[in-house]
């Protein structure tokens, strides 16, 4: 019960703090709350807007939430997303002419492989060389973005893309459309299915049990004969695969090609979603929708109240800090323990 109550209380406190902040510059907090509700959940249109924005966040949040079960903090989701997107686009173009039921899954697999390679790489470095995964995943993410830019403006550039350097566009039947009856693309379903699968894996299988044991106490896990290294590498690779898949969805459902617009900050927002969801893969779904809603209402705050675009960042920052503080203030609640425990000798 407290597992839900504490974040909800933290959220309420954050909204109050944000209200006080906007009141300081002369904007009515009540107007802000009302517009946020209108923009995020006030109508069928707003719901669709929110859900569309939530779709990539579910997958990038899993990129942080899965390794967290082992006590790792991975922040390279952005890089895994863009690398996955690049791999998906390259696959779609390489297989051009083949039937869509073959190509679309192939694009997904390629994207997952690329993401897995990146974040799994960070996991392997952690296990093999003791390199901190937080810093290495971030550096790898920067490098991945540079690779994306280099490829879409160099070897993979479509000469016809002119002023927006991109890969060639994917054939129409390799793109994925919207869900029946609504204006939200299939990426949402992909995200929800992955989150459910991640939850089942971590909470209902021996693999997940072992992984969480490593997260709880690596030394004990090793003494119990658990394959710590394998668990670590497989979990980080899976995490990267999730973000890579998000990249494939972006390419196939939104952009239709790979280019620099893919670097849109979904990776960093995903970190936030994962923490607010307390690293629970299932809770990632509602939290991603909440953040989709914050994004969806940001425009309305700009247009109607003249608040700067950065309002969304401020609110997100306040939520994050308040949430972390609430974890500490509330004694009985425990997060998966992150990186604070001694490493095996």
């Amino acid at each position, binding site marked *: 019960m407290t597992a839900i109550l504490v974040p909800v209380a933290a959220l309420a406190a954050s909204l109050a703090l944000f209200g006080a902040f906007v009141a300081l510059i002369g904007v009515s907090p009540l107007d802000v709350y009302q517009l946020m509700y209108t923009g995020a959940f006030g109508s069928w249109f707003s719901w669709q807007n929110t859900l569309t924005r939530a779709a990539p966040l579910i997958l990038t949040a899993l990129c942080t939430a899965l390794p967290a079960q082992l006590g790792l*903090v991975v*922040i390279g989701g952005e890089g895994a997303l863009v690398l996955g997107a690049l791999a998906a686009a390259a696959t779609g173009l390489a297989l051009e002419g083949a039937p869509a039921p073959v190509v679309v899954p192939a694009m997904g697999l390629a994207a997952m492989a690329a993401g897995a390679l990146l974040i799994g790489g960070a996991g392997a*470095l952690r*296990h*093999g*060389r*003791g*390199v*901190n995964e*937080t*810093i*290495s995943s*971030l*550096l*790898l993410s*920067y*490098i991945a973005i*540079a*690779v994306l*830019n*280099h490829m879409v*403006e*160099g070897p993979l550039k479509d000469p016809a893309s002119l002023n927006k350097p991109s890969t060639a566009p994917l054939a129409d039947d390799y793109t994925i459309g919207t869900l029946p009856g609504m204006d939200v693309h299939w990426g949402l379903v992909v995200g929800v299915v992955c989150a459910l699968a991640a939850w089942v894996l971590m909470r209902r299988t021996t693999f997940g049990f072992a992984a969480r044991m490593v997260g709880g106490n690596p030394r004990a896990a090793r003494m119990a004969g658990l394959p710590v290294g394998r668990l670590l590498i497989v979990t980080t690779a899976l995490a990267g695969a999730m973000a890579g898949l998000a990249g494939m969805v972006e390419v196939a459902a939104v952009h239709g090609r790979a280019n620099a617009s893919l670097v849109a900050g979904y990776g*960093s927002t995903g*970190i*936030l979603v994962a*923490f607010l969801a307390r690293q629970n893969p299932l809770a990632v779904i509602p939290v991603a929708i909440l953040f989709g809603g914050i994004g969806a209402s940001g425009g309305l705050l700009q247009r109607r109240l003249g608040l*700067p*675009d*950065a*309002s*969304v*960042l*401020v*609110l*997100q*920052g*306040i939520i*994050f*800090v308040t*949430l*972390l*503080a609430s*974890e*500490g*203030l509330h*004694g009985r609640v*425990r*997060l998966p*323990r*992150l*990186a*604070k425990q*001694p*490493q095996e000798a």
Partner: protein
Amino acid sequence: MDETSPGWWGVPLAVLAGAIRVSTPFLFVSLGECLTEKSGRINLGLEGTLVMGAMSGYAVAYGTGSPWLGVLVAGLAGTGFGILHAAVCSLERVNDIAVGIALMLLGTGLAFFLGKPYIQPQAPQLPSIDFGWWSTSQQVRSALQVNALFLIGAVLAPLLVWGLRNTRWGMVLRIVGESAEAARAMGYPVNRVRLFATAAGGFLAGVGGSFLSLHYPGSWNERLSSGQGITAVALVIFARWDPVLCFWASLLFGGAGALGPALQAVGVTQGYYLFNAAPYVLTLAIMIATSSARHRLAGAPAELSVTR
């Protein structure tokens, strides 16, 4: 080759000049982070602190006409963020890395939000000191236009090394960083020491930010930092928690950032994205080369979560 064109010789010169120009924010953030990490805590939020320092320093310099007052306020803003980090981290079960990420977000968000009115105006800038008066070459002279903050940083680095080794404060800090339990047993207030270390680290990072907006490139806008704060945190690991090595590593990173443009200026325009990513590759390579799965990094404070 005519006298106005140094040609290929201009590349090392531009890299050296660039190293001096670009390195200062790296230097201040890494020195600050070094202090914080020596106390056994990591503050990833210094990116947000840097941006906040850049904005507040610029705003104050513009409002008061005094760039040095801007530097001071930037430092104080950084101190505020450092205290917030330390306060949240001192609670039970709170992960310092997570708090850092949260403050990165909050710092940049607040700076962007409050900084809107200052994108346009021009604030007074910090002066440079001319060390190149002896040279007849215009290029050499401009390369040796050195900002006072760079010099302060350069002096601060060995001073910190000395202080950490030889003062009571430095020893307490290191004891807390090596073993919180031992420090408690010896009667030192672990959380308060860490609070001071993080606040001081925040101050330095804020000052580093003011260099960006008040000297080089000398303007406030939302893309000003582009990840320099977070790179500087990685740089501390690279520099083995040694302030003097932080100084050299900052110069190296600054120079690496200047290499791309310098090569392009002489006509090498291929692959600039990859050149621009060079510092990240370098850091990663050095981390891989020097880490070990068996024992923690040499020089690493034992309490530090990232090195375990």
